[in-house]
């Protein structure tokens, strides 16, 4: 057997391991092993590739890989679970950048020797550089928004869509022009122009990544992170077309598809189209003035809340990003354990878009040692909401806003929510009556069966725990 054939076979093995790894990620029981299987696939792919290198520049190889490992490993070990969205966003960006550099390096190699580069490969280089570049800077913006380095609010300016449209046209024009240049038929000047075109595309892609991400508000970050996840896969896929390597194409496509599926789930959970998320600047100042619900919110103390919870036999906790921000998840788990000891049924109902990335709340509660059986989805709770004695809403707002069902003028209209307003009693833990992240007023706070428990979530829950222990 030729070495080429053996390598092809091993790349298939790696792809199969990726597929099985992803499949095992669909159950909490097998997920951890699934991740290991997928990592094994990566190891097979890397070792196989090492045997294909005709000349190994050890210094560069060890330097590059060593640097990556020295940065990546401690970051993964030390990152706080609340910061997971930023972390994943940043890693996405690095993946995109790596693919962009691979596309560039391949083109440079062929260009320097004035090799004939097929149209197929030129288009693949073009796509790798564009998708990779947009992924890189788009992820950096998402990272900065999530970590609070820049404002989480949508950045809007006059003529924004026109600027973006012009940029897009420039990308298409440069791209077509670049794809038409056959390096083996060019003289020196022509070669230089072709290379400049590619550099122009790199710059445009980097700018476009920034400009297309800044108008998106912090509440929409789950969608953006999913989309960038998809891009990072597609960039790797495009790089696979450049070097004609199936393992890159397969794994890139798997990740690309995965990101798209998640993007679609997130959009559905908000009842909005992807176009609406990307272009509308949702949550900008124009929306906050709408609404304005009148009425009296009934405020209670921790002691009153204790009496209500004490009498309950069926409790649903609805956590939102506010719980993570207040670092209240451990106190919440303690409270729910005290309730369970009394025989109360406690479940956590988690909305798909709660938190700053898909499934973020589940990770935070898992970190606080909440068993995954207790974590349920809205469709598990909504049909039997009338039987719930107390719904405790901790730092969640838009995902429980009944305006989504009642007010066709609300920006949230049509969004599937957790219908806590139908529970016997709602206790809302909140700092104040201010609107949530999306800047929309919440009529839930003024309903007859709602009690407001104002204050810092962690301090409030700790006070409740103290009441139970007395």
């Amino acid at each position: 057997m030729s070495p080429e054939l053996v390598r092809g076979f091993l790349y298939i093995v790696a792809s199969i391991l990726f597929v099985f790894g992803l499949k095992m990620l669909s159950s909490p029981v097998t997920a951890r092993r699934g991740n290991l299987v997928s990592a094994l696939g990566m190891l097979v792919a890397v070792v196989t590739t090492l045997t294909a290198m005709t000349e190994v520049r050890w210094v560069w190889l060890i330097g590059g890989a060593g640097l990556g490992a020295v940065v990546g490993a401690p970051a993964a070990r030390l990152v706080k679970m609340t910061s997971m969205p930023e972390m994943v966003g940043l890693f996405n960006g690095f993946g995109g950048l790596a693919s962009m550099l691979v596309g560039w390096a391949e083109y440079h190699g062929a260009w320097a020797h004035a090799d004939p580069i097929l149209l197929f490969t030129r288009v693949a280089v073009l796509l790798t550089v564009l998708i990779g570049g947009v992924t890189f800077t788009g992820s950096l913006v998402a990272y900065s928004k999530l970590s609070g380095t820049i404002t989480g609010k949508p950045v809007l300016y006059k003529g924004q869509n026109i600027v973006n449209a012009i940029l897009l046209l420039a990308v298409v024009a440069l791209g077509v022009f670049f794809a038409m240049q056959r390096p083996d038929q060019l003289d020196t000047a022509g070669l230089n122009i072709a290379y400049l075109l590619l550099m122009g595309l790199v710059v445009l892609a980097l700018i476009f990544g920034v400009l297309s991400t800044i108008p998106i508000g912090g509440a929409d970050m789950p969608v953006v992170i999913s989309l960038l996840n998809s891009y990072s896969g597609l960039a790797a896929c495009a790089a696979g077309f450049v070097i004609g390597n199936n393992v890159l194409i397969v794994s890139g496509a798997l990740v690309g598809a995965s990101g798209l599926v998640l993007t679609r789930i997130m959009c559905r959970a908000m009842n909005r189209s992807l176009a609406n998320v990307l272009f509308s600047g949702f949550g900008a100042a124009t929306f906050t003035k709408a609404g304005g619900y009148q009425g009296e919110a009934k405020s209670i103390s921790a002691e009153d809340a204790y009496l209500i919870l004490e009498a309950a036999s069926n409790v649903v906790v609805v956590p939102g990003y506010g719980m993570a921000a207040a670092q209240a998840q451990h106190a919440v788990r303690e409270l729910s354990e005290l309730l369970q000891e009394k025989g109360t049924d406690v479940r956590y109902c988690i909305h798909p878009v709660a938190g700053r990335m898909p499934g973020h709340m589940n990770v935070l509660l898992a970190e606080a040692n909440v068993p995954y059986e207790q974590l349920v989805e809205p469709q598990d709770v909504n049909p039997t909401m009338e039987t719930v004695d107390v719904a405790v809403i901790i730092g969640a707002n838009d995902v429980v806003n009944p305006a989504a069902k009642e007010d066709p003028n609300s920006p949230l209209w049509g969004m599937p929510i957790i219908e806590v307003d139908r529970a016997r009693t709602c206790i809302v833990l909140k700092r104040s009556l201010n609107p949530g992240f999306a800047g929309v007023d919440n009529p839930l706070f003024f309903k007859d069966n709602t009690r407001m428990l104002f204050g810092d979530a962690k301090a409030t829950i700790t006070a409740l725990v103290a009441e139970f222990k007395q």
Partner: protein
Amino acid sequence: MELNATTMSLLFFVFVLAMFLGVELIRKVPSQLHTPLMSGSNAISGITIVGALLALGHETSGAVVTLLGALALAFATINVVGGYLVTDRMLEMFKSKDKQGGKK
């Protein structure tokens, strides 16, 4: 790999099938595992490390290609190493009721 019309269409063929496979695989993942799924699939997108290694490994690669390849290698390694480790750390925390006993 020598590119001709057959190999080109085969690459596309593989791409399209893999996209469908990906959609089918991911649709079944429950929402509680979406974060680890995302960081785990993100680690897989670090497969571009293969491209970086190949760029470093041609005897014809000049200084620029070597430098670009090494940079790509560094970033892809961050993605791979960091992605798998952080996913493992997260999944370690997902515990069932039965296994939780004593450890609080």
